[in-house]
């Protein structure tokens, strides 16, 4: 009898242990934003953190320049009712007409948020959406998605969205895996990459007439085009990613009048154009040693000339391991640079003054990438 009681006790204590363990699960609740004090200066902005693929960790930060506050991960707090939040891989963010547009690639959606509150106004589903630009009350969003079943081609498209109704009005088919979009005059330019076929990359920019929303012609540039921006002189700046046959990444200047390449720079990567200055981050990998060198180059946009100086000081550059996003405050000309580090840990946002001296820095979400200023 004694041993049986002992047995019973053992079993009971085992169950008790289980119950203790079982009570360890925390209640599910929205993760609140984190606020940090930072120097307040210049323009406020949103920063989109891409988050690594399949992690569903795209996140939005907000820099409140007036209050001198950096608010990290604000989306879930502002929109706790959105299932699984902002989504998987944020690819672009822009402010237009009091609204923030966030392009989320793998989640296949454009989130339209109230720029003051960060609250969702609408979600527009576009599979594999990449970049966004605006013109006269319309948004243009590029997408890799090809309706092969009905079109028989791998060509992607650009969707035209009315910024008042937030509905997709029309779409236009462009090249394969279209990336950057920009507008000059009444024309939309789309950089085609063709990245899903490394043996047969696309080499062109599609030109789309905005009145008919039809592709009129293509401009031959180079393999695997990516980022595309217009300057104030009616020229386009487009980067190529290079190919596996040994062609390296480059930056091209395209004259929209002549529809041809005007100039080629051997530096390429993420870039930003502010008035007459182009800011370019480029990473060059040495073919033989595999060593990477990072350059922070400046381009005179008017003269289309590479300037000798870096836009940040060397000492500050050493701190940054993987420069990723770049933006320049249109008012103060302060330079914002993001460090994506190893892509799977929170990054850092650096603020430099226009002389290239580091002013402040703050921790961001995973892969901080796209900055949208609030004018």
């Amino acid at each position, binding site marked *: 009898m004694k*041993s*049986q009681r*002992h*047995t019973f006790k053992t079993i009971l204590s*085992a169950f008790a242990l*289980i119950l203790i*363990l*079982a009570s*360890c*699960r*925390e*209640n*599910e*609740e*929205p*993760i609140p934003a984190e606020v940090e004090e930072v120097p307040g200066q210049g323009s406020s902005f949103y920063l989109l953190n891409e988050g690594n693929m*399949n*992690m*569903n*960790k795209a996140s939005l930060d907000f820099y409140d320049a007036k209050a001198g506050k950096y608010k990290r*991960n604000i989306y*879930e707090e502002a929109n*706790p*009712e*959105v*299932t*699984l939040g902002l*989504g*998987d891989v944020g690819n672009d963010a822009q402010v237009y007409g009091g609204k923030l547009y966030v392009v*989320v690639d*793998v*989640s*296949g*959606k454009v989130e339209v948020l109230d720029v003051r509150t960060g609250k969702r106004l609408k979600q527009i*589903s576009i599979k*594999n959406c990449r970049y966004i630009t605006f013109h006269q009350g319309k948004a243009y969003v590029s997408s890799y*998605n090809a309706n092969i079943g009905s079109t028989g081609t*791998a060509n992607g498209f650009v969707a035209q969205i009315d910024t008042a109704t937030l509905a997709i009005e029309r779409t236009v088919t462009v090249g*394969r895996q279209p990336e950057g979009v920009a507008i000059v005059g009444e024309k939309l330019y789309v950089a085609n990459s063709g*990245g*899903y076929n490394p*043996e047969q990359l696309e080499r062109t920019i599609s030109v789309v007439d905005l009145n008919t929303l039809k592709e009129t012609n293509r401009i031959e540039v180079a393999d695997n085009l990516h980022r595309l921006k217009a300057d104030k002189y009616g020229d386009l700046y487009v980067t190529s*990613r290079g190919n*596996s046959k*040994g062609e390296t*990444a480059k930056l091209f200047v395209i004259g929209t009048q002549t529809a041809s390449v005007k100039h080629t720079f051997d530096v390429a990567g993420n870039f930003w154009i502010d008035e007459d200055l182009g800011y370019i981050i480029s*990473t060059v*990998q040495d*073919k*033989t040693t*595999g060593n*990477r060198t990072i350059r922070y180059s400046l381009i005179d946009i008017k003269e289309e000339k590479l300037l000798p100086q870096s836009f940040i000081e060397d000492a500050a550059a050493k701190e940054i391991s*993987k420069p990723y996003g770049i933006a320049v405050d249109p008012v103060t000309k302060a330079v914002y640079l993001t460090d994506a*580090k*190893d*892509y*799977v*840990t*929170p990054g850092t946002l650096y603020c430099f003054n226009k002389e290239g001296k580091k002013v402040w820095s703050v921790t961001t979400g*995973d892969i901080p990438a796209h900055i949208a200023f609030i004018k």
Partner: protein
Amino acid sequence: MELTARYTFILFTLLVLTGMGQVWAQQTDTIQGGGLHEVEIRTHRLSEQNTSPHPVQTLQGAQLEQLNSLSVADALRYFTGIQLKDYGGIGGLKTVNVRSMGSQQTAVFLDGVQVGNAQNGQVDLGKFSLDNLEQISLYNGHKNSLLQPAKSFSAANALYLQARMPHFAEGEKTHGKASIRTGSFGLINPSVLWQQKITDHIYSTLSAEWTQAHGKYKFRYTNGVYDTTATRHNADINAFRVEAGLQGILPDSSNWALKLYSYTSERGLPGAIVANRFRNSQRLWDRTFFVQSSYNKTFGERYQLLLNGKFTNDYTRYLDPEYNNIAGALDSRYTQREVYFSAAGKYKITSFWDVGLSGDVQYNTLDANSYNFANPTRTTALVALATQLHFNQLEVQASLLSNFISDEVESINSETAAPNSDQQHKITPAFSVLWQPSEQHDLRLRAFYKDIFRMPTFNERYYTSIGTSNLRPEFTRQFNIGVTYAKSMYGALRYFSVQTDAYQNYIKDKIVAVPSANLFRWTMLNLDEVEIRGLETAVQSEWQLAQRILLNIGLNYTFQQALDVTPGSFNYRDQIPYTPLHSGSFTSGATWKNLNLNYSFIYTGERYSQKANIPVNYVQPWYTHDLSASYTLNQQKLTYKLGAEVNNLFNQYYDVILNFPMPGRSYRVSLSINF
């Protein structure tokens, strides 16, 4: 390097020739009588957990049958010190990470021969059904034997799967089993096993199994405000496994075995659940075939030889219809081939001193249809020299392993100057000791030390178009000290055993993916250093209660601190992803007459999904309660067994891997007939 290679081959050749010579020399021996005896396994394994200098955990026979497990992966959940990486569902990838060293650091052996995967270094344990298995053993370090292939010494951890062996009583010629399982997820799982005594000296086994399921299940995500329940789609599987084995004994009493194995499957890959995207359409096809053979002979009193050989052909097709390239979809096909041969010898110098020498050669190829693929080939030569001193209360083993690996690629990438060949050579030591302080008590103290290195897998080396010529092997160093105790008693508590181990592992040059020039070009680097400190304990007890109730209770607990100690790391001294500090399990089974009832509980503590230990990366703990019952009926020569299971009884929704939801409550019933 070349010298070493030559040295390795000479040693290897010598080893084989000595063995072979002896085989031929003994051909004329008189025929020794007797049928087959299962000498090597049955006897000592019962207490192996207590007598091995390397920690070992074993599930076998009835114990294995009573757990609510469909595959080896399910059964491993009951072990200490492991994390099962489970992507959910019947068809989801399941790999095991032992003591936080990474899932490529555990070698899987089926009937003593490694089941390899040179492509990604991971064996999907969900593919191994328990239907035809007799025993599963997980060793930290390696198995404590001198007569084993060099491969057995070459992994940080080893998982041994032992197929069912035929056992024939006097006058018996045939044994068989037919079973069918069905339940949640649209599971239909019939299987047959047929064992035939062909002659007194040759037995055969045939085992076939079909697994089909639509794989759909409900899952739920919530943050307390939104609360979304949806159905997992594209998780179907259709798999067919067939195994045929022959084993026999030759007149000179040597043993031989031959095994043919085939596994074909088609499955959906349900993918990560992310915002606004709850369906995926990627598909995967597998076709694995291998043939393996072994030969074991004892020469006189002192020398024993073990030969093993294997050929594998492994075909995988991955289809992504959402990848809108010119062909309309990404359709990748990979073919792997492996040829393997091993010779191992053991020599008894004195009654207490043995030496072993084993040599393995392996040749791997990987071909793919993707653009600019390197089509790599790898030659591996391993030589292991081991020695063991064993006295009544003390056992000491030391071994040295020579690893020689040579890679070659077909096409040199124009973008890098990666060479088209690469050689690596390393000698790694291991040492273990077991001490029983008093002959009267089954109390043993043990310790082991092991260095091992792991070559980058083909995927790690050649996946991207960028060559990674300077990728070095990944090193692990293990220290372990432990104590085991076992006692048999009269009274209610019949048997009690406990094993507790404390360990420290150190990983250097851990291979991780890091961004290269842009997001499209990731590159693999030897970047991370990880320091792991753990404590694990396993308690087993057997109770005899009133009215013939037999009760088994097991309790496992693991504490594990696995820290990122990479110099200059962004997350210095943070716990590495998916490693809980605390985890454990409780298992219990009661038998009364023909009725068997089981209850088990598995707990995995909080984890982080990324390197940084911050709230956005926090992953909730999970714990499941599983129940099962079975009834056995004997009628003449037939044994019927009817079983029913409820898994995840309290319907907890959880992720093992972030965004790959696991099923809630599920059911299974089974019926089997043994004869």
